[in-house]
């Protein structure tokens, strides 16, 4: 991966400082615009988004540099042209693939966040269980169920027989593992990326769990 800043104009930049993150180079005033970021959760649990919100008041510093496109926070339904797309969760149905491809098409940099996005994670436990048997267990035979019906509305996305990581469907530029990655890991990753540095996690912030 190139060491060149991916998101900012280096020449004639003005520097501002994020706490603990070193100088951040911004584009010249006439070109100054915020980095546009989109996020979504596919076959995930929104735990990575929750961990992202755990950066707490640091989000105010972040919002000086970025603006959100589609995210669960803005409730925008489709991803427009963006600088950074952050994907939580793997791919478990047809809608996941459509959303993922829309992100890839619109985002200059695509980031896989969390174990599910990186290697499929917990949802892959069903990968060696027949899909029909899985549905029957969930909707017919599960504890406390009575006259359960398997949802079959045509508007529901087609489930896949297996869950897969997003890098098996589209090219992914960066991976941030963890279940979820800690707020500090997410903060370090994002501030590195926004500063045009190659994101690098310290030993104690890199986790697969």
């Amino acid at each position, binding site marked *: 991966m190139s060491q060149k800043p991916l998101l900012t104009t280096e020449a004639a930049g003005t520097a501002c400082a994020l706490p603990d993150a070193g100088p951040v180079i911004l584009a010249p005033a006439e070109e100054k615009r915020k980095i546009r970021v989109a996020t979504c959760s596919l076959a995930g649990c929104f735990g990575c988004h929750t961990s992202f919100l755990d950066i707490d008041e640091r989000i105010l510093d972040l919002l000086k540099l970025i603006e959100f496109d589609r995210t669960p926070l803005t409730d925008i339904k489709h991803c427009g042209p963006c600088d950074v797309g952050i994907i939580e969760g793997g791919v478990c149905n047809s809608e996941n693939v459509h959303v993922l491809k829309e992100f890839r098409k619109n985002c200059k940099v695509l980031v*896989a966040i969390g*174990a599910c996005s*990186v*290697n*499929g*994670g*917990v949802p*892959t*436990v069903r*990968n*060696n269980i027949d899909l029909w048997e899985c549905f029957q267990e969930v909707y017919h035979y599960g504890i406390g169920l009575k006259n359960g019906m398997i949802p079959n509305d045509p508007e529901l996305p087609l489930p896949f027989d*297996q869950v*897969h*990581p997003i*890098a*098996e469907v589209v090219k*992914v530029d*960066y*991976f*941030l*593992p963890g*279940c979820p990655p800690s707020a500090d890991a997410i903060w370090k990753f994002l501030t590195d990326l926004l500063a045009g540095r190659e994101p690098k996690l310290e*030993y*104690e912030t*890199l*986790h*697969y*769990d």
Partner: protein
Amino acid sequence: MSDNTITIDGQAVPFAPGQTIMEAAMAAGVYIPHLCHNPEFTPHGSCKLCTVTVNGRNAASCTMPAAPGMVVQNDTEELNANRRALTQMLFVEGNHVCPFCEKSGNCQLQAMGYFLGMMDPHYDQFYPPRDVDASHPDILLDLNRCILCELCVRASRDVDGKNVFGVTGRGPHTRITVNSASGRLGDTDMAVTDRAADVCPVGAILKKRHGFEVPIGQRTYDHKTIKDVHMEEAGK
């Protein structure tokens, strides 16, 4: 005496006749990453993580005997990239779901991924169908997490004298098998106090009712790298 010396990354490392490169290196405080090697047991040479370049050729340092004047490269960008690729292959060839694995934080495969800076699996996942055997009252055998280091085979055969484990199948179908008529662990004489019960570097063989006993932050590799831990164990 000066003949019995090799160099590893330019550092002179003495060896005793019969020692492998790995043994000489560890004795001299030089870390060579490894997973299937455990100094207690006969070297196995299967994981290939400890591959070093010896006089220009690659060899597994855990099985290669040290010889006078050997020139060894170990901690190089290329060899560490190979080690990362091997670790990624071990991850995708099994079903390693760290978020709910009881071994997480104490797992050598995971620790090796951290040590080598593995951020993604790189290769497509296999998601192989693998068996779980919970028939033993005190021990769980979960082949989803097995990396075929055969430490359980060696421990059960060489230390416990029970020959509980063996290996069967070929290629991607290779798997650990249990030496009982039913093939179930509960029908063997394996005991939870056996060496084979706590030699597994990953979460394939677990003692029941001990999961998640150690909180996050106090687990083996939460603050120490696998290098730190292995060198401490070697008394270095």
